[in-house]
C-alpha cells in the first residue's frame, strides 16, 4: 500500500493523533510541568482504566451497538473479586472469576440483544441498573478494602519503570488491534456493523459473534475493575459511575462511527488519551472540575463536528 493510500484510509486516525499532539503542545506552553516523564506516566496511568473499557466499547460500537452497562459491570466485578480475595481465594482463580463475572454479564447483554431482539441501548440500560444494584446488594453498600501486596502489585508495580496499568492498557490495545484487523472475529465485527443482513446472508453466525463481542466488552470492564481495585486498595459498589460515557466519548473522539462498520481501536486509545490529557492539564492549570466538564463536553462535540466536515470534504 502506498503512503498516500494509507493516509487516505487512515487519515482520520492521523487527525486525532494530530489533535492530541496539539493539545499536549498547548498544555506544555501553559504549564511546563506537564511535559515531565512522571506527569506523562501519571496521565497514562489515569487513562488506562477508561481506555481498557473503551477498547471493548469500540468492538461494540463498530457493530452499530452500544454498551451502557460497563460502569456498573466494573463495580460488580470489582466487589466480587474483592470479596473472594478477602475470603482467601488465591489470586489467579479470584482474578479469573472477577473478570469472568464481567464476561458473563456481557454475554447476557449479547443474548438479550440477539435472542431477545432488544435494542442494545435498552438491554444494556437495564443491565446497567441490574449490575449496579447487584454490586450494592452484594456489599450492603459498603466498600471492601485492604488487600495483599501481591494483588496491589497489579496497579502499583512498575516493571522497567512503566506502571502496570499502562502495560496492561498497551497489551490490551495491541490484542484488540490484532483481533480487529487480523482475525475472523474482527472481520465479522465490521461486517455486522456495516450491514447485518448481508452478513447473515453470507452465512455468518451473527448471533454468536455479537454475543461474543458483548462478552469481550464486559470482560474488559472486569479487567478494568481489577486494576481499579488494586489501585485504590478498595472495591466500591459505586465505582465506575459514568465510565460508560467516558468510554463512549473516547471511542467517538477516536473516529468510530455510532452508525457502525467503521472505526479503529488506536483511534480510541488516542481519544482516551485526549480526555486524560485534558483532565490532567486542566487540573494542573487549577481549572475547577466543574469547568473541566464543560470543556470536555465541548471537545467531544467539536471532534465529531470536525470528523463529519472532513468526511464530507473527502467525498
Amino acid at each position, binding site marked *: *500500500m502506498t503512503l498516500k*493510500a494509507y493516509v487516505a*484510509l487512515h487519515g482520520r486516525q492521523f487527525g486525532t493523533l494530530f489533535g492530541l499532539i496539539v493539545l499536549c503542545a498547548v498544555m506544555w506552553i501553559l504549564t511546563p510541568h506537564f511535559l515531565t516523564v512522571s506527569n506523562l506516566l501519571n496521565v497514562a496511568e489515569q487513562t488506562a482504566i477508561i481506555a481498557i473499557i473503551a477498547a471493548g466499547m469500540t468492538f461494540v460500537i463498530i457493530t452499530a451497538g452500544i454498551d451502557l452497562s460497563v460502569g456498573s459491570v466494573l463495580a460488580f466485578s470489582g466487589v466480587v473479586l474483592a470479596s473472594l480475595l478477602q475470603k482467601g481465594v488465591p489470586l489467579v482463580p479470584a482474578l479469573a472469576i472477577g473478570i469472568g463475572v464481567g464476561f458473563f454479564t456481557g454475554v447476557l447483554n449479547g443474548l438479550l440483544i440477539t435472542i431477545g431482539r432488544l435494542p442494545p441501548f435498552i438491554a444494556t440500560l437495564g443491565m446497567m441498573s441490574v449490575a449496579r444494584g447487584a454490586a450494592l446488594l452484594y456489599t450492603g453498600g459498603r466498600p471492601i478494602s485492604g488487600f495483599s501486596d501481591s494483588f496491589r502489585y497489579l496497579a502499583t508495580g512498575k516493571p522497567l519503570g512503566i506502571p502496570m496499568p499502562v502495560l496492561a492498557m498497551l497489551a490490551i490495545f495491541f490484542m484488540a488491534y490484532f483481533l480487529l484487523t*487480523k*482475525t*475472523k*472475529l474482527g*472481520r*465479522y465485527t*465490521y*461486517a455486522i456493523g*456495516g*450491514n447485518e*443482513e*448481508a*452478513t*447473515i*446472508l*453470507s*452465512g*455468518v*453466525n451473527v448471533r454468536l459473534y455479537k454475543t461474543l463481542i458483548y462478552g469481550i466488552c464486559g470482560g474488559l470492564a472486569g479487567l478494568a475493575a481489577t486494576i481499579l481495585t488494586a489501585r485504590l486498595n478498595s472495591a466500591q459498589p459505586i465505582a465506575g459511575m459514568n465510565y460508560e460515557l467516558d468510554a463512549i466519548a473516547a471511542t467517538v473522539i477516536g473516529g468510530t462511527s455510532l452508525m457502525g*462498520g*467503521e472505526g479503529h481501536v488506536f483511534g480510541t486509545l488516542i481519544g482516551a488519551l485526549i480526555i486524560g490529557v485534558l483532565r490532567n492539564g486542566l487540573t494542573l492549570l487549577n481549572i475547577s472540575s466543574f469547568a473541566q466538564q464543560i470543556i470536555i463536553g465541548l471537545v467531544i462535540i467539536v471532534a465529531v463536528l470536525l470528523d463529519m466536515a472532513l468526511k464530507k470534504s473527502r467525498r
Partner: protein
Amino acid sequence: MENNLALQMRAIRKTFPGVVALNNVDFDLRRGEVHILLGENGAGKSTLMKILSGAYQKDSGKILLNNREIEIKNPRHSCELGIGIIYQELNLVPHLSAAENIFLGREPAAFGLIDKKRMNQSAQRLLAGLGMDFDPQRLVRELSIAEQQMVEIAKAISLDARILIMDEPTSALTEREIKELFARIRLLKSDGVSIIYISHRMEELFEIGDRVTVLRDGNWVGTHNIAEVTKPELIRMMVNRELTQQFPKIKAPRGREVLRVEGLSRNDALTRISFSLYEGEILGISGLLGSGRTELARAIFGLDKIDAGSIQVKGRLQKITSPRQAINLGFGFLTEDRKTQGLVLPLSVQENICLPSVERFSRFGVVSNSEETEAAGRFLKDLRIKATGLGQRVIYLSGGNQQKVVLSKWLCSNGNILIFDEPTRGIDVGSKAEIYQLMNQLTAAGTAILMISSDLPEILGMSDRILVMHQGRINGEFSAADATQEQILHCALGEAA
C-alpha cells in the same frame, strides 16, 4: 372551453440519473370516472402518480386541474388541491384510533384540547357515508386491511378529495371485500369523485374501469374505453416492446439434476412448489411483484422456515435451516437489493468477496491476508471489476461492478447453484451484457442458475426453461425457445397456462 375533465396531464417528462422514467406522457381524467392505469413493473405508473401527489417534481409538461394550470409543489399542496392517494402499503398510524387517523394533524379542538367527541362523531359520519359501521374509536392495528383501506378513503374524503389515486387496492383483500370495495367506489363515482386505479388484475379492470391508459417503459401507449378493448389487446400493449437489448444466450448442455424441490409450502406465501434444476441450466422464474418469487429463494436458502415439502440437493435430501448450511451445499444468493442485502458497503472489495469464505482462509481464527488477496484478485481480474484495487470500498463502485462483487462472493465460496434475484436491476446496458456473458460462462462450466426476474425480455432471452408464479404457486412452465411475452404475462396474471 367547457369540458368534463377533472385533470389533464400533458407531455409529462421525468428523468432520474441515467434513466427516463416518463417520456412525454399524456393522461386525463374525467369527472366521476374510474380510469385504469396499466403497465408492467417499471413502466412509469408510480412515477406519474408521485408527480400528481407532489412527491416528485416533473421536469417538464403541464398539469391542468379543472382546466386551470397548476404546479404541484409538495404532498401537502396536492392534498389541498383535492388529490388523495391510497397507497398499497397503507399509511396509517397503527397505534391510533380510526378517528384519530382520519383527522391526524387537524383534530377538531377547543381551547387547545382535542374535542374527542366531535372527532369521533365526524369520523362515524364519514365512515357511514362509505357504508361502514365499525366504531371509529377502534385502534387501526385491530382493523382488517379492508377496514384500514376505508379509513384511508374516509381520510381522503374528509380532505375534500375530488380525485382519488388507488394503488393496487385489492392486492390484500378477499373476494368479498373486493366486492364491497367496488360498491364503495361506485358510490364515490356517483358523487362525482374521479378515481385513478392502478392494478394488475385484469378481471377487475373490466369490472370497475371506465377507461384504461397503458404505459410501457415510460411512454404513453394508448388510452381506450374499457368496453372497446380485450384482454389480449391490453397485454400486447403492455409488453410489445422492441427487443433492443441483446441477449447473448449460449445454451449449455444439460447435466444431472442438482436441485429438486417438492411440495414446498410456507404459510400463505408459498403453496406446494415443485420443480427441478439441472447443471448448466438457467431456470427463469417470472411473476408479478408479490407472487412469491423472492420468498421461494429465501426458503431454499435457509432464511425462512418452510412448513412442508422437501429439498433434494445433488440427489440427497437436505433440511436447510441456515444460510451457512445452504452455502456449504453450494448455494449462492444474489439478492434483489445489492445495497441492503448483498454488500457491506463500508468494507472493501476484498472483504466483501471473501465474506462467506472467511472460514476457509482462516487458521485458528486468524485470516490469511495473502490467501484472500490471491482469491479476490483472481475474481477482480476474471470478472473485470472496475475498482482502484482490492482495498477500495464497494460503496464507491458503480451498480454493475457492485453486482460483479456480489457474484464473485458466491463464486469464491464455490457456489454452483446460484440464485439470481433481479440480476440486472439498476445496471447500465453495458454491464448488463457483461453479467449475461458471465452467466453463459458459468452454465458452460456446469453451474445451475435460478434466475428470478421481472424483465420479460431478460427471462425469455436468458432462460432455458421458465416457471411462472402467481399468488405463491407455480402457474405454468414454458420452454424459453417457444414462449412469448404475452403467454408469460397471461400466466403471471393468473390465467391458466
